[in-house]
């Protein structure tokens, strides 16, 4: 049985991802914060990417850095610092996608809510702008994507009629 992954755009520059895990919060929190564990799950394998480097100084004000991609010589980098660290239930961090440094930092809030041995992860991502959010959705795509999601939604709706 697969637990469902829900992605919602709750505001112009906010995305929320929800997923339940069949284990206690401290376990999910560890998997989320320990580099040796992150290296094993964070990079989606079917995209052919690997998390080459993962450094994390898990304390308020501490920094982290994830370098990933296909070619270790040309990694993509996410970096930032921890704003709140409350194991095993809450983590707030800033996130900069270094290739799009000018777009500014996102604020990511992860909450781990345990109930009857299972844990609901809610990942709030507040992007610096609407464009930055759309950039994140276009992750891995070529640059130059300027169609807004609203427009895409409409086009998708239209395609149902023209099928």
């Amino acid at each position, binding site marked *: 049985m697969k637990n469902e992954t829900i992605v919602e755009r709750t505001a112009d520059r906010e995305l929320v991802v929800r997923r339940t*895990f069949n284990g206690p919060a401290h376990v999910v929190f560890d998997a989320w914060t320990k580099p040796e564990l992150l290296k094993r799950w964070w990079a989606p394998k079917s995209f052919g990417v690997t998390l080459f480097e993962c450094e994390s100084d898990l304390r308020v004000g501490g920094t982290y850095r994830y370098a990933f991609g296909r070619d270790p010589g040309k990694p993509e980098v996410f970096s930032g610092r921890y704003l709140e660290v409350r194991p095993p239930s809450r983590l707030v961090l800033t996130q900069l996608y270094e290739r799009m440094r000018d777009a500014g930092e996102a604020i990511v809030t992860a909450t781990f809510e345990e109930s009857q041995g299972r844990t609901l992860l809610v990942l709030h991502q507040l992007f610096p702008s609407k464009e930055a959010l759309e950039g994140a959705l276009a992750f891995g795509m070529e640059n130059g994507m300027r169609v807004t999601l609203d427009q895409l939604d409409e086009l998708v709706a239209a*395609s149902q009629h023209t099928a």
Partner: protein
Amino acid sequence: MNAETLAALGEPNRLRIVELLRAGPRPVNDIRGRLGLRQSQVSQHLKVLKDVGLVEIEPRAQQRFYRLRARPLKQLHKWLDRYRHIWEERFEQLDEIVEELKGKEKSDAAGKDK
């Protein structure tokens, strides 16, 4: 859906043309009139849209109607869904680690009981 198609839609007037064609096929003159563009501009945009496969030509009597092609738009939907798939795949990988850590805690606890 590829980068070329997305780039084609990235031009505001081309996107307006695509939105207009959602209602059904239209001739060039009609598109020009509704969008207030010059004939040459419209022709240029339609050529780009046709080259990437977003529109096709349907001859009707003496006129050429431009019609939206559904397939690339369906691909767009897939592209939108991809972000969710990235997380889904990560989470499935994370599930394995959760199982492993749970198992480890269990055996550690059993070890302590001895």
